[in-house]
């Protein structure tokens, strides 16, 4: 039997020794981690920790100075065009065109992703995300919660195998945020998609993520399953762990953090 092709790997994302500097600022400093297919991984860190730069490099928008990124077994940014058809992205900091209706937006993005049987797919998403009441309204006239639902529908148009989410519930009320998390859980369960989630909302990370990578000053400060991190740091919640990492404090009896790169090299 021939060896399985590289593209058939069980890893959705493989990052090796990734580094990026802007002038004298080392934004990402030699990080390595892997995200197995079908899992949800949280990318945590304070402002300036390197999350956005890492996501930018994962989408091929920023060229790394060193290191490599493989997504679904293919090189990013070398095979960017092929990969982006199988990925998608959602962030409250990126808008849909305001003067197009929700339906027009979904049609345009569906065509960009060359979604087969687009009309049926849009109908399916309109039903799934409860968009019917405002599907013919201009995107600029939607509430924050409605915009998030539309953005998420757009992000799932092409049934992505890898979904990158940048603070998907930022500025949403608790009810809408909970609804969004529920939809993400459903999508992952139904499709086996891989999700990389950058978030400052620790309860959200604890609920959604199988694994967490904590960044600080461009380096991986620690990583592990949320429950393991909470146990190792001797804390009650992931939020307290985050604060320990950010402030360099430790609870009485806490275990030492996992050395950087250890898990990636294991």
């Amino acid at each position: 039997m021939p060896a399985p092709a590289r593209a058939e790997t069980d890893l959705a994302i493989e990052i090796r020794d990734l580094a990026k500097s802007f002038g004298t600022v080392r934004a990402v400093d030699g990080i390595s981690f892997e995200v197995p297919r079908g899992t949800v991984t949280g990318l945590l860190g304070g402002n300036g920790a390197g999350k956005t730069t890492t996501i930018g490099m994962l989408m091929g928008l920023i060229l790394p100075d060193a290191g490599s990124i493989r997504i679904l077994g293919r090189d990013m940014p070398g095979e960017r065009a092929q990969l982006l058809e199988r990925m998608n992205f959602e962030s409250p900091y990126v808008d849909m065109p305001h003067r197009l209706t929700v339906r027009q937006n979904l049609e345009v993005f569906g065509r960009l992703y060359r979604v087969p049987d687009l009309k049926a797919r849009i109908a399916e998403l309109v039903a799934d995300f409860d968009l019917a009441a405002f599907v013919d309204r201009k995107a600029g006239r939607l509430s924050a919660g409605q915009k998030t639902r539309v953005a998420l529908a757009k992000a799932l148009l092409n049934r992505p195998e890898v979904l990158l989410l940048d603070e998907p519930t930022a500025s949403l009320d608790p009810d809408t945020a909970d609804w969004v998390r529920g939809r993400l859980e459903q999508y992952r369960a139904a499709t086996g998609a891989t999700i990389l989630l950058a978030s400052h909302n620790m309860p959200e990370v604890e609920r959604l993520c199988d694994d967490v990578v904590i960044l600080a000053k461009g380096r991986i400060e620690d990583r592990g399953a949320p429950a393991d991190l909470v146990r190792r740091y001797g804390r009650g919640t992931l939020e307290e762990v985050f604060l320990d990492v950010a402030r360099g404090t430790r609870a009485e009896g806490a275990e030492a953090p996992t050395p950087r790169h250890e898990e990636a090299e294991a």
Partner: protein
Amino acid sequence: MTSATRSTGFSFARIGAMVLRYWYLLSNSWPRAVELIYWPTVQMLTWGFVQLYVAQNSSFFANAAGLFVGGLLLWDVLLRSQQGFAFAFLEELWSRNLGNLLMSPLRPSEFIVSLMVISLVRLAIGMLPVTFLAIPLFGFNVWSLGLPLAVFFAGLVIAGWSIGLVIIGILLRQGMGAEALAWSLMFLLMPITCVYYPVSTLPSLLQPVAWSLPTTYVFEGLRALLIHHEIRFDLLAGAFALDALWFVAAVVVFYRLLASARRTGSLLQQGE
């Protein structure tokens, strides 16, 4: 779930998607459509009346009907092709949608072609009514120029796209701080490219600069046609040779600026 990688070569479907996006924008926003017609009409009325006045007092201009209006119409083809190209791109910055596009499978080459197509659509919406209005108002039928008109048109549109391409490259690299270039850069060319007067009018120092612009050959060609009633193929050839050179240079500059934006991370920071 999609597991196979589909062919991702140059895609006319994605170009069609972007053209549809801009068409929806125009059809959903009547002020945008009105604005496309408004400025060419105002310009044409102003220069048309200037031409009428001058022609009444000068046998030269009386014998060269349409010199101003023709120059103006062709200038507007140049200006609107550049602005149509750059403004369509600016719409993505204004609506904070560029991130969605840059993280989609849309290739830069497909994006560029879609901007070209939409600039032609905007040009047609803005210019066609004006050309027909010039016939009864000023007795100038630009369509009577026939084949040379098509050649003039193509020469100017390609030059407009070249400048538009450099402008969006700068916007990608510098962000919205460079927005003013989309409005103003073309006006830097206006006095040098000799829209309304021959190159010989310029100081001798500026004349080589004028002849380095493909658009100058078009406007000289228009004057040769209207004043001497001759088609100057040498001028048309010069225009297209320089157009080709300019366009290739603009593509190179655009891709270099895009690569530079990827290195510096400015694609993620498209604010001011």
